[in-house]
């Protein structure tokens, strides 16, 4: 059944129905509505698996609580925004290294610094280029509609446990605050067996969730193991190519709300007889490199539409090795359909 729902509420519902066992969070605009909606669902007590809801004293506490929950094999999540994500970086690094799963919803706001609370996509470089010290590559999902946000929460839990890794759902103030139609009821995520979890002789074994390897050969082996896992994670790379032909005049590249707006620009250009298309990474990390190379090679021009100074274009350029024009929106402005179309006209 189709229904109209606010992004934050949809995320909260998807999380709880998908089997959220613990939520830890510290309020920050524009993410707080997710926590507030979750607190209602927790209070209603209709979901027996939802054991813990706790307002932490800081994002440092939040991430370490997620780490504890993940280490003990529980499905946990938080929602935050740029300043909070910065504080979480150390904990994400520990969790990545010691393979504790959890999901962080990063609702991007204007940055750097305190910035503002308007939508931006300014955490792209931060999440893609080592989210924490020592080389950290979490899985990053980038939904562009409210329904897709729900699907990504569900998928986020699945991936976090399948690969025992932190997962980031990168979204922005606009998608989280908009009312949108959805037609999807998330099923319960059946957790794989957590026979590795440290919860007191789980499955009769002693379990150590650790990231310290004082001897270089041991640390090297652990890093190699994580890199090997990274290779396997490459397989889940997913993207959408909207109106992509064998030959294109212009290929737009965008994620999240920028992608949604760019789709409209593609349709307008198509009406004018321009062969336009949009490449949209669905998983931002791993990025679908094959898809990107395939579609970009068919286009005369590539334009990256971003609500930042060109952070995604930087990633794209590294892969396609040719000029990528950037259409940047800074400070909380969102892309304008005509302006996007104008980059070709």
């Amino acid at each position, binding site marked *: 059944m189709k229904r109209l729902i606010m992004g934050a509420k949809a995320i909260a519902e998807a999380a709880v129905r998908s089997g959220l066992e613990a939520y830890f969070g510290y309020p920050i605009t524009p993410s707080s509505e997710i926590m507030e909606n979750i607190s209602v669902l927790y209070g209603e007590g209709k979901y027996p698996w939802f054991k813990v809801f706790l307002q932490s004293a800081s994002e440092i506490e939040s991430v370490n*609580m997620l780490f504890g929950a993940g280490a003990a094999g529980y499905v946990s999540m938080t929602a935050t925004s740029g300043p909070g994500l910065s504080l979480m970086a150390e904990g994400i690094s520990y969790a990545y290294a010691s393979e504790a799963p959890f999901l962080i919803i990063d609702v991007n706001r204007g940055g750097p610094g305190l910035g503002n609370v308007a939508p931006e996509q300014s955490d792209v470089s931060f999440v893609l280029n080592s989210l924490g010290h020592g080389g950290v590559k979490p899985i990053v999902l980038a939904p562009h509609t409210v329904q897709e946000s729900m699907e990504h929460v569900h998928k986020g839990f699945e991936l976090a446990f399948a690969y025992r890794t932190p997962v980031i759902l990168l979204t922005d103030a606009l998608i989280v605050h908009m009312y949108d139609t959805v037609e999807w009821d998330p099923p319960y995520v059946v957790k794989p067996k957590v026979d590795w979890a*440290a919860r007191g002789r789980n499955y009769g074994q002693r*379990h150590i969730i650790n990231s310290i390897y004082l001897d270089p050969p041991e640390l090297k082996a652990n890093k190699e193991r994580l890199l090997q896992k990274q290779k396997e994670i490459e397989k889940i790379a997913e993207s959408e190519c909207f109106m992509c032909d064998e030959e294109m005049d212009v290929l737009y590249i965008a994620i999240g709300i920028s992608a949604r707006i760019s789709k409209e620009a593609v349709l307008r250009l198509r009406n004018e007889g321009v062969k336009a298309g949009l490449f949209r990474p669905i998983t931002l990390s791993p990025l679908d490199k094959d898809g990107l190379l395939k579609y970009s090679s068919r286009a005369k021009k590539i334009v990256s539409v971003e609500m930042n100074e060109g952070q995604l274009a930087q990633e794209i350029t590294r892969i396609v090795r040719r000029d990528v024009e950037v259409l940047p929106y800074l400070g909380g402005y969102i892309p304008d359909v005509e302006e996007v179309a104008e980059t070709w006209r």
Partner: protein
Amino acid sequence: MEVKQFSSIFENGVTTYCPGCEHGLLLKFIGMALDELGITEKAIMVGSVGCSTLAYKFLNVDYVQAPHGRAPAVMSAIKLLEKDKVVFAIQGDGDALSIGIAELMHAANRGIPLTIFMYNNMVFGMTGGQMAPTTPEGMKTTTTPFGRDVKQMGPPIDACKVLSAFPQISYLKRVVITPKPIYTKDRVMYSSKEAMDSYKAVLNAFKTQLMGGFSFVEFIGTCNVNWKMTILDSKKYVHDVGVKVYPPGLCRDVYGVDKK
């Protein structure tokens, strides 16, 4: 005398701590208490960052290594999700009172049933003997080569005083773990009172958690290596200076475990 075998301790209790350090003693007491209470199988240790980080090598319990100062947050989540388990940590004074004082205070304020053992050696041991929030006035460290200046740095922080402010703590105690040197005519002997007191405090802290309360025990101990003292002088320092700055005593015992 018969030597008791502690199933929670690997290699018959041999640790790799510096000779003369009481970190190893504390581990032994924890292992003994886990065994005595029969809770080794359901214990989960959360490691802090400092010399106690190595504890997972010697205690045969489940283990999660937290970032520096954040053990209380990691423990809180585990305990809330695994209510029947026993969750404990050994924190250094730097870990608990410098970088991690916020996490410690909030966990204490919530009163989640956890047990924290804080080894207070009055310096940062692991990183080579820098000043800690607990460094006594005038004590020379590698970052206070002329002695701690309390005008600039403030007086040493007293964990038991700080934590006394939180009503939901159930067991709060400070003990000296360093054996006291006793000088006889021809040699030096060590008192066993400190070991007995410390063991009792460990046992009672666990009992408090089992009864549903938050417990915190501070152990005043040495770090002869970083204090740049002989083992004997370091033990003397604890009993001459340490106990004056940090007088041992029971601050709170809601369940009356200390009396029993």
